[in-house]
């Protein structure tokens, strides 16, 4: 069984991508590693991982499509759909792809078989290879509003194809709602990246609550340590959340990050932080 770490944060821009990409690259120096970018609305990991593109596949979701000739206009489909994705307008049945949750109810309950399910592209998953690191990234099509189906598909694909890779890192979307739940559910450990500011603290609290709700073990990484105040650390002490590492605020990190570079080989503080995280994982989880 592979060991899966999800890297998440309530607040965006705290350093999730920085940590996920650097940790994955660092760990892959010693062991086969999988990095999965699940921030499908705004995937960024690929910027930092200069791998070779192995393949690309379209990800589809199933959407009902109206067959006018078979339709008796009974209206059952429109009454069934809870998402207003299927609407009857006079003698016309309209399907709104972006509202559809692919529950199949309208299609399978249609007495005239007039709404067969058809594949509709919602995004794309690309696989890259770099040494002992395998990297997969999914990106949502512009205009497609639901991230969760694509996140789920990506996780299923990772499980099916890459279950033999022992160490896996999942870079999650920001926030605390359904996409984050979908992205963290299967993880053995969730690392929450935060910054020592009131925004960072507020969103860390929300994220911790979400993860406790899911029953996930949590570790915290404090990025940009030195700015703001000590309230994030006080909170972690109070809540008995392990602080796995602190990455000091450093302009050099920000500058290298801005250029799309991995930083751990150049910035000792980052390498030390990664080392601490790796040894925490080894000590407590023995993957």
């Amino acid at each position, binding site marked *: 069984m592979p060991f899966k770490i999800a890297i998440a944060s309530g607040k965006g821009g705290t350093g999730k991508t920085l940590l996920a990409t650097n940790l994955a690259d660092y760990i892959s120096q010693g062991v086969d590693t999988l990095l999965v970018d699940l921030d499908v609305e*705004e995937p960024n990991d690929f910027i930092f991982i200069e791998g070779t593109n192995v393949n690309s596949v379209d990800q589809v979701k199933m959407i009902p499509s109206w067959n006018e000739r078979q339709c008796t206009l009974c209206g059952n489909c429109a009454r069934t759909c809870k998402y207003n994705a299927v609407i009857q307008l006079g003698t016309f049945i309209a399907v709104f792809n972006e509202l559809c949750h692919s529950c199949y*109810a309208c299609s*399978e309950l249609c007495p005239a078989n007039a709404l067969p399910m058809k594949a509709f592209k919602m995004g794309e998953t690309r696989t890259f290879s770099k040494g002992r690191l395998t990297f997969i990234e999914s990106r949502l099509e*512009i205009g497609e509003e639901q991230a969760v189906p694509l996140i789920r598909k990506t996780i299923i694909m990772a499980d099916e194809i890459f279950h033999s890779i022992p160490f896996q890192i999942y870079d999650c979307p920001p926030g605390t709602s359904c996409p984050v739940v979908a992205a963290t559910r299967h993880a053995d450990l969730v690392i929450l990246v935060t910054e020592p500011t009131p925004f960072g603290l*507020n969103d860390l609290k929300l994220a911790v609550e979400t993860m406790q709700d899911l029953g996930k073990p949590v570790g915290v990484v404090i990025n940009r340590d030195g700015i703001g105040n000590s309230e994030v650390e006080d909170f972690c002490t109070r809540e008995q959340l392990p602080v796995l590492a602190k990455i000091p605020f450093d302009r050099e990190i920000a500058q290298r990050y*801005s*250029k799309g570079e991995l930083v751990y080989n150049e910035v000792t503080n980052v390498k030390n932080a990664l080392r601490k995280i790796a040894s925490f994982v080894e000590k407590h989880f023995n993957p």
Partner: protein
Amino acid sequence: MNEIVILSGKGGTGKTSITASLAVLAGNDAVIADCDVDAANMHLLLNPDFGTTIEFFSGELAVINQKQCTRCRKCEDACRFNAIGYADKKMQVIPIDCEGCGYCEIVCPTRAITMSERKSGNVFISNTKAGSKMVHARLDIGAENSGKLVARVKNEARSLAVAGNKAFVIIDGAPGIGCPVVSSLAGANYVLLVTEPTMSGLHDLKRICAVIRKFRIKAGCIINKWDLNEKKTTEIKQFLQNEQIEQLTDIPYDIRFTNAMTKGKTIVEVPSPYRQILHRIWNEIKSQLPK
């Protein structure tokens, strides 16, 4: 009444700090809406009083009446979300997986399943320290439909603006390009983009601009922390020019933003040149709005 939405694509670019500053500058002329309901932060800077709380219901959840259930498992077969399973000798719904489609309710031969309304968060209507009304929300943990909650927050803010005869609704949007963002864009008159000169910042800016283009809304952009990477800043400016998005100003990386935030203040409430700069931006945005 005009609606101004502040967006960034990427998180952590300074969107909320800028939005709260504009809220302070606009004072009583505006109603404020925090549509980043997933990770709402604006209340930390605007000191709202959480005056009114409204429970928010959205979507449905399948509930099984065990007395009527014959464990025929037709519901389990119908469910595409693996949200119903057989455990402890009964059929059980896993609430976090249930998407409320109601398929199980329809196929149940003994009518043992009913769909119940699902509470997914709270909406708050507050008075802020800037003298304005603010609508904000908190989504329950892991809840769905943050797009619908965004729409609710916006609608409450709109009604308050109309009732109070306010000129503006200032909306802090969510990161990303998905349903909360699309929901916060609907009906907007102007989009203010806040980006940063990083590869990720530009990449996400391009994706959010593709969404804005679909809506055909006028947009302007602030490049925050511009001095982190001057080359990338130039690249962003070029991109903005091609997109016909007005580049409003550059703001350097300045620890004073964080220091102000730590004190619960916006940058325009502490000594710095940014009060004047953001004041100019606010006037510029106002001049771009339909009369």
